[in-house]
């Protein structure tokens, strides 16, 4: 192939890559397409800086107990005797903790009328029913994931969740009442970065809603793996401390 011919082929190839309107055929970002695997993004090169979390203020009956609990956790951790958690006992994380556990990925699947979130750690599943009315808080049986309904507000998926059981671990170890309402706003800030702004509104426990934002990076080729917690060698001793089981052979 002569140089002139090669140059002609190259020009034709470039032309073929354009539409009849002269625009590039580069993939159009789909701001409402969240389907894919995502991993928590916490800083690092190129990571966006999500807004800082809002301050946490609890109503008086709950504030003292929450502060005492956190102080006990800190003291135990300092001594090298961390207190057991639902996580250390291989129980589900539930909402909202499941939305970011260490750097484990999660998969989002969009199907007609539903968005499904499957986490890798503990294989937890939550289903978000689109464009359906939410029930009253006393109509939803308490559970780890509650009942979630969602709708699109522009290019932001807004999800509202109620029905989180009292024993489910809260953000920053916060307690919650049956009135807890979690509102999430999921937005693609770039085609490969997703942000989830989470607002916890609990008029019984919180002075005012608490808001924090999680970020995720898309993992295009990642294959989610199974995670069945069937060999938990961390156990809880009589003092409530989590310890590792050491074998003798």
């Amino acid at each position: 192939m002569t140089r002139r011919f090669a140059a002609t082929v190259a020009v034709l190839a470039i032309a073929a890559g354009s539409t009849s309107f002269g625009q590039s055929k580069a993939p159009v970002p789909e701001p409402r397409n969240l389907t894919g695997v995502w991993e928590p993004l916490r800083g690092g090169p190129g990571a966006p800086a999500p807004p800082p979390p809002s301050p946490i203020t609890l109503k008086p009956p709950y504030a003292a107990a929450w502060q005492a609990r956190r102080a006990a956790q800190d003291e135990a951790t300092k001594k090298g005797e961390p207190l057991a958690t639902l996580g250390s006992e291989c129980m589900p994380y539930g909402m909202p903790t499941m939305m970011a556990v260490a750097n484990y990925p999660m998969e989002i699947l969009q199907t007609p009328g539903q968005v499904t979130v499957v986490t890798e750690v503990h294989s937890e599943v939550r289903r978000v029913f689109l464009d359906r009315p939410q029930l009253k808080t006393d109509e939803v049986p308490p559970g780890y994931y509650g009942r979630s309904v969602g709708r699109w507000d522009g290019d932001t998926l807004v999800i509202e969740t109620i029905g989180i059981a009292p024993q489910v671990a809260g953000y920053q170890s916060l307690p919650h009442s049956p009135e807890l309402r979690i509102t999430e706003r999921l937005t693609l800030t770039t085609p490969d970065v997703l942000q989830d702004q989470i607002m916890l509104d609990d008029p019984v426990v919180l002075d005012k809603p608490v808001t924090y934002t999680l970020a995720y990076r898309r993992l295009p080729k990642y294959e989610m793996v199974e995670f069945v917690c069937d060999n938990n060698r961390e156990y809880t001793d009589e003092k409530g401390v989590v310890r590792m089981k050491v074998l003798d052979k």
Partner: protein
Amino acid sequence: MRSLSTQPVARLLSVAAVILLVGRPVAGHHSFAMFDSVNKTTITGTVTRFEWTNPHVFIEVDVPGANGQVKHWSVELGSPSILQRSGWKFSDVKPGEKITAIVNPLRDGRPGGMLYRLTLADGSMRGNGTAPPPDPVTR
């Protein structure tokens, strides 16, 4: 494959990643506070069992002592998910294999620890969810 010694920045970054993962107050299976985050212990011995399981992978090792008595150690690693993302395979360690493990030992004195770096019988190294980290700093 490039020698690790040609990638000092990558090595430092991997250490930073470990520190970030351990030191950051994010939700995880359990706190790492039960392990000594500063001091490390090196054990060399024979693998008796390799558990590629959740929530953690474990390597069981018989470690011969100076007096000829064998002391058994349990070494905890991350989960299979975390490890395989950093290049591990479920078949990387075999019972009967001689290994050297640098661990952050349990603070309660029992013979167990969290893996820092593993050296397999063929001389290849593995990190614990990161690239193999550099030799620990002697304090």
